């Protein structure tokens, strides 16, 4: 009987572990510093997590489909630079769709390589990380990009505006999360993404067009990147060429923290959002405790390893691996 409850607890922990850890974290930080759960602090954290979060939503699709996307950081730099540059040249109304078009084009190219040509996603997106970085630098000539008239443009509404008291980045993040969550869990397409990632061969044999599904996951990912680039550009109205550098791995960390397996076939949008928020609140909590920003790197390291380890340990029923 005791054995049974122990197993039961283990299973609950394994299934909802990340949520429980999140709650424990929040309570711990709140006790340490009451300011942590003030409404403006929480809204501030979500707002600053929105860019990372929006990108993580798209990468969740790619990862569930059994692939990786290391190019999102450099692609985000690209869309930020492009939209800022075009803003002054053709005006914001045209710049935004143009930037979305170009970013989706990059996503389609990656999707074609990984989906239809069946090339290894890690190397393709690694190559694209470098290539898109080169593209961005060529576009900007290596210069920082700034909007000339910063106070006279409505473009800043996406990153800085409020609607009914709620910051627009939060609304965009939440809206995208809800829509993508519905697509993933309620549509035939969503089920096919899981099928392709869970067992690609079986999916092909049951008539699911693997190539097209993978292609679409990259298209979704690049759409999310374009949204993130829009938020970034609109928030700062000026940018370096390397604004998204290194974000690809932080995004992946959030997705993994949310419990998506890198082997594909598992993960949800909701869990990814939790993963993003955990990263955001850890960073914020440590800052409020007076620790430097880089302490969060070490904490994130420990948390990622523990989260994945406990997940695996619960599945195999023992803590240590059976590797000889």
């Amino acid at each position, binding site marked *: 009987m005791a054995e049974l409850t122990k197993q039961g607890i283990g299973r609950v922990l394994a299934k909802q572990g990340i949520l429980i850890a999140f709650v424990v974290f929040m309570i711990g930080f709140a006790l340490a510093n009451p300011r942590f759960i003030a409404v403006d602090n929480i809204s501030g954290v979500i707002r600053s997590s929105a860019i990372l979060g929006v990108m993580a939503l798209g990468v969740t699709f790619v990862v569930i489909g059994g692939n990786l996307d*290391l190019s999102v950081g450099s692609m985000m730099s690209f869309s930020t630079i492009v939209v800022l540059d075009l803003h002054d040249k053709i005006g914001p109304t045209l710049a935004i769709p143009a930037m979305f078009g170009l970013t989706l084009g990059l996503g389609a190219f990656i999707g074609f*390589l990984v989906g239809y*040509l*069946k*090339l*290894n996603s*890690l*190397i*393709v997106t*690694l*190559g*694209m*990380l*470098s*290539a*898109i*970085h*080169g*593209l961005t*630098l*060529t576009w900007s000539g*290596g210069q920082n990009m700034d909007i000339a008239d910063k106070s006279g443009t409505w473009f800043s509404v996406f990153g800085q505006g409020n609607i009914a008291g709620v910051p627009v980045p939060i609304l965009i993040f939440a809206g995208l999360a809800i829509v993508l969550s519905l697509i993933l869990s309620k549509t035939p397409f969503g089920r096919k993404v899981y099928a392709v990632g869970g067992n690609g061969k079986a999916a092909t044999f049951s008539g699911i067009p693997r190539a097209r599904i993978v292609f679409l996951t990259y298209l979704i990912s690049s759409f999310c990147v374009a949204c993130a680039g829009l938020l970034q550009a609109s928030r700062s109205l000026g940018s370096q060429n390397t604004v998204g*550098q*290194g974000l690809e*791995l*932080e995004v*992946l*960390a959030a997705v*993994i923290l949310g419990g998506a397996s*890198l082997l594909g076939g598992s993960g949800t949008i909701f869990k990814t959002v939790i993963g993003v928020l955990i990263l955001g609140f850890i960073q914020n909590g440590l800052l409020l405790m007076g620790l*430097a920003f*880089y*302490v*969060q*790197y*070490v*904490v*994130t*390291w*420990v948390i*990622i*390893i523990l989260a*994945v*380890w406990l997940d*695996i*340990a619960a599945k*195999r029923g023992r803590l*240590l*691996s*059976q*590797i*000889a």
Partner: protein
Amino acid sequence: MNKDTLLKQGAIWAFIVVELIFFSIAGSYLSVSDSAFMDFDNMLLLLKQSAPIGIIALGMTIIMINGNIDLSVGATYALSAIILLDSMTWPFMQAMGDWAIPLAWVFALLTGTILGAINGLIVWKTGVDAFIVTLGSMLGYRGLVFMYNGEQPTSHLNWTLVDFAEAQFLGLHTATWFLLGAALLLWLLMTKTVHGRNAYAIGNNREAAVNAGIRVGPHFLWNFMLIGFLASLSAVVFYSESGSVNPNDGMLYELWAITAVVLGGTKLTGGYGSIISTLGGVIAIQLLRKGLGHIGADTETVNLVIGLILIAVLFLDRQLNRKGKEELKT
């Protein structure tokens, strides 16, 4: 060596020859400098500049032959560099005069080896995939780098050390000797020893390797310690000369190293790859950087070109393999 492996391992060297010819010819029309691209000193410099990424890429080859990956080498590189430079300012080290240099090297190399061992132990004991483990420690080790000295650069210039690092022996720079020496030793390790044979066996078919009695866990541990050691060796070679390290140094080195290894033909899935071909991959990338600079292309195009070449290599490799298999069938 049969025709197939000759074709695969020769491909990267053929590519290097093509690069040399292309940049020499293009350079004679486009270059603003008077010296030829294949200038002897220029080539020596090229080898020297290949050393930091090259030494790491050699270790990455072994990790990838195992079927693993290590994303934390850039951070390991930075932390070892900080230990190297900072340890020379410790009071008891300063009291030792120039004898502090070998000791500082030992400290730096130990740092890398220990960081590698941490990765290896986690991979072994938890069974978590190396990609995730090293993704985590890439962040974690970078955090340690920042915690050591905040956002300040760490500097210490020791002229004896600089003289050593800038020295040329038989025409080759110190860094080049380290690169070639490491390549030779690792080539021997991978081709002549049981450990090397096991590495291929594990990458090819892990289950079969376990059944054959190979202890996979300790094997992984050794290899992660080896790449940690090499990352710090690379730092030792580079920072002995430069004498100053920023906390962001070494970022994206893991991606450059992986790019070089893949260009050299090593398979991500494990079981296939060669140290010598990786050396070719490293030289090919450095040639491309230098060559594009030589013909007056903007430095930013290097990223674009290397990224696209990486994808093209992946595509060609797949096509070649598929063709080979179809020939087998008929």
